[in-house]
């Protein structure tokens, strides 16, 4: 009995290993890159334009506008002066003005901004120890302080050289935060803990009562503001953007997948006109140019693009979709061969997973086939008595090909 159980534990382990190995090998052969169109909004023709790799010749790209006209690369880039201004300038065709707005390279650069929010940002481990920069230093460049801070039941600065809490500094900041009625512990801390930015806006911190606080250091003193951002927003993610345009401090994503800008105008929120955004499944790109705001967000099956004016009023939208991988013929074949596939890594998370992805009804094809083969080999070739090891068949009925390989390779013994 013990040996029998032992054989089954080996068979189950082999089945699990095969559900990792075989789909991996399969996709090594049949996987293809997704070639999605690069959509942009042209301020010249006031319409969407896109470039896409040719399906037939992957070394070539086609350039088209929404009306179906095709372009060569140079005339395509001429439609997008806010993206390709360096090229247009080199060719001497950068327009002097667009829509009455005078245009030159430095003007475009000063009035452009780009923010990306990827789904993987929501699923990545991060230790919350951050540096608090001096945001109004006498010196031009940001400098790394000697401490990192943590916020548990109080705020503590840790000196890296001595690896100990700096009490005086911690006390100063605790006092400033308590004065603003900050309720420890912090639920969320957002900032850019790097000196590679134009200036510093410190951190946005959500306290235990869902109130958003703004904390930074000015001339060595704490600067802590209790913002008026509503506490019932279910904020999930904040990305602070220190951009010299100084339109907004940060972008927020809520659990309901709404997006807001936290503006420099007394932390007033600006709701972005983005519908059907799913933070866990989509990547979002937010382009700001001198005239338009463009939001591009896409999942593994569709892409949406929304263009707005300065005040985030929608001007135009574009939507396209393609066959998702799960609908590919090769996916259907995989589903009928493999009853489930063990997924360990995924582009939308930094965590290692152990997900058994079940294939649905199609798997029955493979399972019946595997059962048939197993019974045939066991009876005709191995000459086994099926009743004696009926559990083998049950394993095959659940795990198909994997189980069949396991029970046929690791054969039952004449048990005691």
């Amino acid at each position, binding site marked *: 009995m*013990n*040996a029998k*159980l*032992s*054989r089954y*534990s*080996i068979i*189950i*382990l*082999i089945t*699990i*290993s*095969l559900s*990792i*190995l075989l789909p991996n090998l399969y996709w090594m052969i049949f996987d293809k890159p997704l070639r999605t169109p690069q959509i942009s909004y042209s301020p010249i023709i006031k319409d969407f334009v896109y470039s896409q790799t040719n399906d037939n010749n992957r070394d070539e790209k086609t350039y088209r506008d929404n009306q179906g006209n095709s372009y060569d690369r140079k005339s395509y880039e001429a439609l997008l002066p806010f993206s390709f201004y360096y090229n247009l300038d080199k060719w001497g065709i950068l327009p002097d003005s667009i829509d009455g707005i005078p245009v030159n390279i430095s003007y475009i650069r000063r009035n452009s901004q780009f923010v990306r929010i990827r789904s993987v940002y929501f699923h990545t*481990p991060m*230790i*919350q*120890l951050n*540096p608090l920069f001096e945001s109004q230093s006498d010196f031009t460049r940001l400098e*790394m*302080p*000697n*401490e*990192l801070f*943590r916020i548990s039941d109080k705020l503590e600065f*840790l000196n*890296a*050289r001595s*690896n100990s809490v700096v009490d005086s500094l911690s006390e100063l900041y605790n006092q400033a935060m308590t004065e603003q009625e900050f309720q420890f512990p912090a639920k969320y801390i957002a900032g850019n*803990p*790097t000196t590679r930015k134009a200036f510093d806006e410190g951190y946005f911190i959500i306290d235990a009562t869902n109130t958003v606080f703004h904390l930074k250091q000015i001339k060595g003193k704490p600067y802590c503001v209790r913002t008026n951002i509503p506490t019932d927003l279910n904020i999930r993610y904040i990305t602070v953007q220190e951009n010299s345009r100084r339109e907004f401090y940060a972008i927020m994503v809520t659990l309901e997948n709404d997006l807001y800008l936290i503006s420099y105008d007394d932390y007033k929120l600006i709701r972005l006109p983005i519908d059907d955004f799913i933070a866990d499944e989509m990547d979002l790109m937010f382009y700001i140019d001198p005239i338009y705001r463009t939001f591009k967000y896409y999942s593994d099956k569709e892409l949406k693009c929304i263009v707005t004016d300065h005040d985030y009023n929608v001007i135009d939208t574009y939507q396209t979709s393609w066959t998702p991988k799960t609908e590919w013929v090769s996916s259907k074949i995989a589903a009928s061969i493999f009853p489930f596939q063990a997924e*360990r*890594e995924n582009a939308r998370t*930094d*965590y*290692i*997973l*152990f997900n058994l992805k079940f294939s649905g009804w199609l798997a029955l094809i493979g399972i019946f086939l595997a059962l048939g083969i197993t019974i045939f080999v066991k009876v005709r070739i191995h000459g086994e008595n099926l009743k004696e090891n009926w559990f083998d068949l049950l394993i095959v009925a659940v795990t198909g090909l994997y189980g069949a390989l*396991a029970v046929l*390779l*690791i*054969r039952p*013994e*004449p048990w005691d």
Partner: protein
Amino acid sequence: MFKAILYKEWLKIRWVVLGSILAVLGFLVYIGLNVRQYFEMNDPINVWIFFVQQKVLYYSILKYIPVFIAIILAVVQFVPEMVKKRYRLTFHLPFSETKSLFIMSFIGMGHILLVSVILLLGLTIIGSIYFPVELTASSLVSVLPWLLAGFASYLTTSAVVLDPSWKYRVLFVLFLTPFIQSLFLEQGYYEYKYSIVFFFLISLLFGIIILFPGYRLRKGSVK
């Protein structure tokens, strides 16, 4: 009888036990010196920032150590038993094969547990000297899959060595490694946070895989 088995196992593995403890201590000293050098040569705050933000594991040199020790341990423990099929003598003792195999593998796993505890203690000491408790805690959690892989590879190697046929040995190695390899996918800290429980539960199955090869050995199976 139990004492006799214990003594026999000790005779086989004593040098590996000693050697592996020394090796692990050596690696820990290396990590300690390496971290110390980072702090000497760089601004300490940048070292912290680097390990927090870039998620570089300063102890990644330990990754395959438990597996390496486990495989050697299983080999020195079970290969002598297989020379001239000596282990079959055990079957004449008034002691079940299940019991004796379990005792043998418990002894081996006891040593891997010892190695794991030394590693965790070492990382705790290094962490408490140089790093905030958050980073130290992350190091203790992030090595868990590697330690688990140590136990799994020990039990797999034991089964491989003990099985009387080469066909099964090859099959075991080929088809059990993808699971064990799944424990080495980590790039940064805490990445197994949500899956380590599943990996642990599945790994429990390794606990009894040695009985089947043992049974085949007793029966003289050659399939």
